[in-house]
């Protein structure tokens, strides 16, 4: 029985010790750092490629075996890293349970005078010789003016004054530690009750499932349609200014939400599932269509759309036209030649063939260069190739996020209180011809305040 108690005590003390905390700080840091060097990839190739920079191919394969044995290529989700984080949390909990009650008790119990030996051991001590009957009152007054709570005791060495201020702020440490636990709890909830995935939706189509990071399909319970995707560029450059998807939610065949616009940094949430603009890409499809605007002689605008090589009529003329080539980013070089700058739709262009009475002419029309819209048959603006791009969305459901936010706020509040509003404790012994100041707070932090108090005490005398 006694033996078990002893073991219980040992285990408890092990988890309540700050030594463990300090050790965990170091071990977790080193572990996390390793993960930033070794490629984090389930596929073997990147890891082997990484090691073959430093060693022969065969050793690199051996290195990979060691790496995968310890999950170093999936370190942050490995059993041992999870175990370390678990230890960290346990350490925090046990340590708080171990210490909090005695701290709370110390607020309730009425203070007792400290023996002189203990005071003498305090790191800060400052003595002044003074001979004045009223000095006790003056010291008390100075402390009171500074907002301290004062207790007086008659001791054999003189009157002991205990002055405290902000002693309750010691609780803030526990708030900080609690906030870490809340954040960890939020993360766990996210892992067990949430999901992450992505979906690539081609313009003009919809999907009702997302693909998880592991490649599994996750049904959403509704369909997300992409009406349109566009990239806006800074003027005269290929630097993107904004990515934008125009979405629609369809549930049971009925559109329930329309005209949704999402951009990077501006996600959208439906039924707890949030959609983020993440990427985009080029994917020509059957239904892709070229969209034009034709300005007739009276200045009226006609919208035209046509598929690749599909003939369309130029309104109010007898001219037929069709598209035979497309370029996503046509540029003009110094010699006036056309060339393709990029696979992004920076300046989409089409090569249009015009047919009039059996005679064919062709012309490039660049959507961003108005001069090229002028054709022998009138002004024809090329607007876009619709249905040839997909929008890449990140999809997430994470019921743990509110806890993460709450934990973060509490941590900030806790840290500020704990580091900027430290409790102040002074012990003063006033005897016949001298007063001595003591403080348990470590050296260098409080001496100035003591000097100030001393100065004020003296100042009062003058």
């Amino acid at each position, binding site marked *: 029985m006694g033996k078990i108690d002893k073991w219980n005590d040992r285990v408890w003390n092990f988890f309540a010790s700050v030594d463990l905390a300090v050790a965990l700080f170091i071990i977790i840091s080193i572990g996390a750092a390793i993960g930033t060097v070794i490629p984090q990839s389930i596929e073997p190739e990147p890891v082997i490629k990484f090691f073959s920079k430093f060693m022969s191919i065969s050793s690199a394969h051996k290195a990979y075996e060691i790496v995968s044995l310890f999950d170093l290529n999936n370190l942050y989700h490995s059993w041992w890293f999870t175990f370390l984080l678990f230890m960290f949390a346990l350490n925090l909990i046990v340590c708080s349970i171990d210490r909090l009650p005695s701290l709370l008790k110390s607020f309730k119990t009425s203070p007792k005078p400290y023996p002189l030996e203990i005071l003498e051991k305090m790191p800060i001590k400052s003595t002044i010789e003074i001979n004045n009957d009223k000095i006790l009152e003056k010291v008390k007054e100075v402390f009171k003016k500074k907002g301290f709570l004062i207790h007086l005791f008659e001791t054999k060495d003189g009157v002991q004054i205990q002055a405290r201020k902000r002693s309750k702020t010691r609780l803030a440490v526990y708030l900080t530690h609690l906030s870490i636990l809340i954040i960890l709890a939020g993360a766990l909830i996210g892992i067990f009750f949430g999901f992450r995935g992505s979906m690539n939706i081609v313009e003009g189509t919809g999907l009702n499932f997302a693909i998880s990071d592991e490649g599994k399909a996750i049904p959403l319970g509704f369909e997300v349609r992409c009406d349109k995707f566009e990239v806006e560029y800074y003027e005269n450059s290929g630097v993107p200014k*904004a990515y934008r998807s125009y979405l629609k939610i369809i549930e049971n065949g009925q559109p329930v939400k329309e005209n949704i616009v999402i951009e990077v940094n501006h996600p959208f949430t439906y039924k707890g599932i949030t959609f983020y603009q993440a990427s985009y890409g080029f994917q020509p499809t059957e239904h892709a269509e070229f969209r034009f605007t034709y300005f007739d002689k009276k200045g009226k605008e006609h919208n035209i759309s046509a598929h690749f090589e599909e003939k369309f009529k130029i309104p109010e003329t007898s001219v037929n036209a069709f598209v035979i080539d497309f370029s996503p980013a046509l540029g003009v070089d110094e010699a006036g030649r056309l060339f393709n700058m990029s696979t992004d739709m920076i300046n989409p262009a089409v090569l249009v063939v015009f047919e009039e009475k059996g005679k064919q002419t062709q012309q490039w029309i660049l959507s961003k260069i108005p001069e090229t819209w002028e054709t022998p048959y009138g002004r024809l603006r090329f607007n876009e190739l619709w249905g040839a791009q997909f929008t890449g969305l990140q999809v997430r459901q994470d019921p743990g996020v509110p806890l993460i936010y709450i934990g973060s706020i509490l*941590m*900030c509040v806790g*840290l500020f209180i704990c580091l900027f509003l430290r409790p102040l404790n002074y012990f003063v012994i006033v005897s016949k011809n001298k007063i001595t100041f003591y403080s348990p707070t470590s*050296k260098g932090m409080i001496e100035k305040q003591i000097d100030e108090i001393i100065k004020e005490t003296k100042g009062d005398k003058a």
Partner: protein
Amino acid sequence: MSYQIISIAGLLYIIAMPIYIVYMLTKNKKLGFAATGMIFSGALIHIYGFIQRFKEMYSINHSFMRSIPITNLYESLVFFVLCIVLGYLFIEWKYKNKTFGVFVSIIAGITIGITDLLGITKEVQPLVPALKSNWLLAHVTLSFIAYAAFAISFITALIHIIMGTENKKSFKYIFSTSALGFMFFMFVSVILDVVTSSNPKSVKIFHSTLGNPSIGISLFSWLALFGTIFLFWGLSNRIIKIFENFKITPQFLEDVTYKAIAFGFPIFTIGGLVFGAIWADQAWGRYWGWDPKETWSLITWFVYAFYLHAKFIKGWKGTKTSMIAVIGFLVTMFTYLGVNLFLSGLHSYGSM
């Protein structure tokens, strides 16, 4: 252009360094004023350059919040230096003590010099969509304020170790004097690199010294480096005397180190970790993804948490805790620069 104005500020910081040294050797009050004046006018010009750059960005982005110039590596380094210098001027004014000026001007000079050497683009660039977030702005600004606070704790911690260690053969002592010697050498080398470079884009750091194509110069530079380190190690008694002359005590240094960390730690927690997480959450739908930059921020945070716990709960005293502060800043710098140079990740400063 704004970067030319900022270069002038950098020049003033560099000139301040020798003035501070002569001031410390002679205790001549006028020189002290001149040194402070140099750094102070550097800071004013720096702020003016910052505002000019703000205007240049505003003319592209047309948004007040999106035009604060801290969106690429160059701008962030410049902002980092500004924070250090302003933080230092505050300390100089508060403690009426000019002795850290040397080190601050060394760090400022090296950093501004590096922006010239690494071929970092100094042009104002339009913002890519991911960077258009007010959280990002708060995240970056506060992170650099915290980094600057850590830089100051690094300086005081180094001097503290040198002053507070009896045993000249101990690792702590050799490490700190070497670090100081190396910083001093790097300062001179960076200036030489900048002065001798004809085309900044093609010049590498230490080109004019350690990495010089001429073996003679390179060899001489290595000797000079070791000589400098040895000098700092051997002359440290003198250096300590100088500090004592200025009423710098180990307790004072420990106190300033602690205060800088106690200021930087919560700011870093809010700005570096929390706001960064919120931004990532809104941009990509994940508040934490173990991206190298995030991971190293967490490591940085752990190191300073280690400092606080060692100091307050385990009762570590003196140079032992200062050693943690020194390591903390080295880790901070790795988080800031090393991750971009050696590891890859999401952060935009990666492109240099």
